[in-house]
């Protein structure tokens, strides 16, 4: 009896929290005429026409360009964060370097509203020509990702037996060799988690995409809102819905594939913070 009630609650909660995505998904399969007359969950004449037209490149809107911008910037933002965090995490975990200064400082960055830095970054980017570039956006997404990447990697390295390092050092290996040959291969799961989680975070970022790009490097979170502001005849809901589903899909798929690792690292990150 209680177990049945649990299933009911679970189903209800799952439906409610995923409600906007479900509504958007249903709408994306409706024809414009049906959207105007039938706002229910039932689809009378399912169609893929919305997807076909949003994935077709036109002069005005190019979804592929937004997707590519998001992909490129998120790739830079997640890869660079891991590359910068790994050696630093090694120095923090094994060399106790900045264990009580650098680590808490970086970790606390997660709790600081990043808009604080947005205006000088905007002005600096303007000076050096990084405004509206995928590289510029990727560099800022690196900052967004660094704290959690560092926490995940420090935790992972601290879990490795220190005897492995010491054995390698007795064989004459220096810190760089230990990092490259012992620590990096053994940390591969943590590196993957940090990378995937960073990629999802970067893909979903909006504020810096909005501020730092205008035309060339617009990411899909920002570009999706353009589909709401086009044409004179109001919003074309079918197209907008298809765009939102396409934009939300990559992180959802990654998240589903990785949710066990991600939930564990979320918890690890939370406890360290």
């Amino acid at each position, binding site marked *: 009896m209680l177990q049945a009630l649990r299933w009911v609650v679970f189903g209800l909660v799952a439906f*409610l929290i995923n409600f906007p995505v479900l*509504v*958007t998904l249903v709408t994306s399969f409706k024809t414009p005429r049906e959207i105007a007359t039938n706002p229910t969950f039932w689809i009378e004449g399912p169609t893929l026409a919305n997807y076909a037209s949003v994935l077709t490149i036109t002069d005005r809107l190019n979804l592929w360009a937004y997707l590519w911008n998001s992909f490129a910037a998120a790739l830079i933002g997640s890869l660079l964060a891991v590359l910068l965090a790994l050696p630093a995490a090694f120095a923090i975990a*094994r060399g106790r370097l900045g264990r009580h200064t650098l680590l808490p400082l970086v970790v606390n*960055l997660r709790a600081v509203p990043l808009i604080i830095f947005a205006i000088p970054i905007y002005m600096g980017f303007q000076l050096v020509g990084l405004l509206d570039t995928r590289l510029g956006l990727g560099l800022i997404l690196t900052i967004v990702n660094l704290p959690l990447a560092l926490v995940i990697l420090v935790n992972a390295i601290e879990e490795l037996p220190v005897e492995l390092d010491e054995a390698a050092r007795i064989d004459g290996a220096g810190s760089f060799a230990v990092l490259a040959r012992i620590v990096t291969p053994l940390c591969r799961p943590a590196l993957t988690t940090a990378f995937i989680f960073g990629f999802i975070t970067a893909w979903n970022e909006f504020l810096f995409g909005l501020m730092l790009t205008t035309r060339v490097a617009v990411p899909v979170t920002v570009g999706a809102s353009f589909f709401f502001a086009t044409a004179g005849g109001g919003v074309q809901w079918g197209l*907008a819905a298809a765009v939102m589903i396409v934009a*939300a899909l990559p992180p959802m798929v990654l998240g589903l594939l990785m949710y066990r690792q991600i*939930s564990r690292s979320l918890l690890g990150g939370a406890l360290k913070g």
Partner: protein
Amino acid sequence: MTAGMSMTQRTEWAVLATPMVAFLLLFLGLPTILNLIYSVSEVRFETLRSPTLTGLQNYAAALSDPAFWRATWFSTRFAVVTATLQCVIGLALAIFLHPLLRERSWAVGILMMPLMVAPALVGLMYRLVLHEFVGPVPHYAYAFLGWSPSFLSGATVFWTLVVIESLQWTPFAFLLFHMAYSAIPAELREAGLVDGAGPFDFLRFVELPLMVPTLVIAFFIRFIDGFRVFDNIFVLVGSGPGGSTASLSIYIYESFFRQGAIGRAVAASVILFITSFAVLWVLTRLAARRKS
């Protein structure tokens, strides 16, 4: 280990950490300094390279702007309400659903889905969900109640946004509680039941106290994210009817981009910066004192 560390080894550690530190100095340290300079200067987009010092005028402008205080109040209220809701509901769900989810991680995965969707996209989706002609929520409200509130008008918009934020982020709090609750050893539970404690006594006197640290952390994280909220509100209603939904992040953004009030926006940033660090510093000290 530290005592026996050789000079070369210490250099090696420093070299390993240098790229990250340099990157942080360039992208956060330098902007902080620029913030401080611009906040005491008169600056326009044409004079970015040669700001003229003016003292504390920008701070005075920000602190005497009613919109600044309204945004501060909005952010605070939004953060407290959403963090509380998410923690209460998340905790209740984690405990109630625990027997169901213990062996079914796929079910946890379904509850995690909202965390993977960009808040900006979720905000856009609610334009559809709440639309009075094509949205299902007004449609079903009319069908079943014969009446539908206007969700984004001045009277209701705050609570609409609270619900939107909470529906997306309660899973985060839930997930932390689920993992903390699952980590309570089964022997403890069995021992408690053998001692004759009822399940509710056990929950109240043993399990909930064990969850308190997680509860504090979850509330803190959700409070921070609620306080700096931007994406979903911005795409759905902007600064809202009469600026009523401008969070501090939206206030700074609009001061800068829409009104071109660079000095005021930067001064507000610095105020937010100092407040954040002061709060974090106090919390870190408190945590350290509790540990020792």
